[in-house]
């Protein structure tokens, strides 16, 4: 073996050793939050009115206010970060983030990679159609139609008849062979506004989202019947029951002292944080 080859082998071995010895920051979330005095919260940057960038270029919304209240209760600073949704829901955060107050529905699949210590609001899933739509009056009319949903959302699972909400009675799916079109939610709404069936026939989404969009877009119409009511949970990394317990305790306290209701009234003019509909 010539000298450069040996040098390369040594270098490769060293590289492997460094990679193996790379410190892992995974471990107790609670311990980390206490040590650093900072709670790192992940949320969505373009999901108004839950999480969005406001006119002053600051993150704002219902989820941001809830996060602020949780951090205040813990007595720590709040750090907000906005990675892609796929990065959040795939779990295995490895200590990168401490908590997700990001409007996540606790589905069975997600529960395999994330913990859901507390439900903090309920959102009705609704159907939105174009103003001139004549044929779609309820979920039963969705068979064979092109229906837009947020990619990776629970609405996508619902249309595939796979949605199971833990702790709730099984859902009914009064449709078959829906052509599910997953994509960016706000682009879906734009496509639907082009006309009934031009690119989409309908959209399944959260009522608050549909309501916000339809305010600025008169071509859209929300059907009044609610498809199902969906709990939205706070998500944490798996494996820290103490942290989960603390989060659950804080959310309960924020419900008791009226903080959550106040935040809900501020953003929706109604209370979406009380269980049941």
């Amino acid at each position, binding site marked *: 073996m010539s000298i450069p080859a040996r040098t390369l082998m040594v270098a*490769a071995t060293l590289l492997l050793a460094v990679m193996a010895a790379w410190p892992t920051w995974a471990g107790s979330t609670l311990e980390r939050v206490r040590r650093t005095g900072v709670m790192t919260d992940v949320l969505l940057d373009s999901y108004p009115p839950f999480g969005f960038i406001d006119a002053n*270029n600051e993150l704002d919304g219902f989820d941001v206010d809830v996060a602020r209240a949780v951090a205040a209760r813990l007595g720590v600073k709040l750090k907000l970060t906005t990675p892609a949704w796929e990065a959040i829901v795939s779990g295995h955060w490895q200590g990168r983030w401490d908590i997700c107050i990001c409007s996540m529905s606790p589905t069975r699949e997600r529960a395999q990679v994330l913990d859901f210590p507390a439900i903090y609001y309920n959102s009705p899933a609704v159907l939105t159609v174009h103003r001139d739509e004549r044929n779609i009056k309820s979920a039963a009319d969705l068979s064979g139609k092109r229906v837009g949903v947020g990619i990776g959302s629970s609405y996508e699972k619902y249309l595939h008849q796979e949605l199971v909400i833990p702790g709730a009675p099984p859902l009914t799916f009064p449709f078959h062979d829906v052509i599910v079109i997953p994509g960016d939610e706000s682009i879906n709404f734009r496509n639907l506004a082009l006309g009934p069936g031009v690119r989409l026939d309908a959209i399944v989404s959260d009522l608050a989202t549909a309501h916000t969009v339809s305010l600025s877009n008169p071509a859209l119409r929300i059907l009044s019947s609610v498809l199902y009511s969906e709990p939205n949970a706070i998500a944490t990394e798996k494996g820290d029951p103490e942290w989960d317990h603390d989060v659950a305790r804080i959310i309960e306290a924020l419900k008791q002292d009226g903080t959550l209701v106040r935040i809900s009234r501020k953003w929706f003019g109604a209370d979406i944080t009380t269980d049941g509909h």
Partner: protein
Amino acid sequence: MAIEQPALPTAMGAGFRRGVWLTWATLLILLAAAGYELNLDFGYLSQKLPFLLGLKLAPDGFIQGAALTIFVTSISMICALGVALITALGRMSRNPVAFAIATFYASLFRGTPLLVQVLIIYLALPQIGVVLGGLSSGLIALSLNYGAYLAETIRSGVMAIPAGQREAAMALALPRWVITWKVMAPQALRLIIPPAGALFVSMLKDSSLVSIMGLWELNFLAQSYARTTYHYMEMLIAAALIYWALSILFELVQFRLERRFARGVAVAGGR
């Protein structure tokens, strides 16, 4: 020695240059007219422009917008250059291990999509214990991906130098480093700079992939504002124009470098 004159516009007359400017101006006016037809909300545009350009800091105190895009691209460019040099050396090495590592790396990173590489570095590495921040993941992915392409560009530039150049330098008993840096490198750079410039312009736009990691660069802000307020055309066009302006800056730098390294050829050709 017969080395053809490089075809740079400066070599042309004033009439040619005037024609180029006039055509550019006409095309720009046509484009602006088409844009005007879209009925853009210029009030909204001017409200968001300082953020898109990165004239203000993000809420977390970090740079954002075009400033972050330039930052990510510049650092990745420097790292990619280092990676590419080492890979090109390995690619031209007679050592089988060095050659194999260089070709394996170049093949892997040229043969898989950049988006997949970004996601693997950001999402899969933590599972084996390497937890990188969003910024470093993005820089590593861009550097490794473009390093692989740039290595081939560098290699082709070096290979294109006639063997006689090295042989003549050796016959003059010049030291090895003089042969490498004073004989080979300037000639190779002349050939490497145009395709390398094209790579960096495309890296500038690919840097938008780091938005996945929650970095508030130009594309991230434009899309986020667009989705939140439904000013799609305003934000997309603004982002496109800023990217375009930045790549024109890149091209100007490339043009100057090209001219710098073509000087030797002009002298050699004029003999």
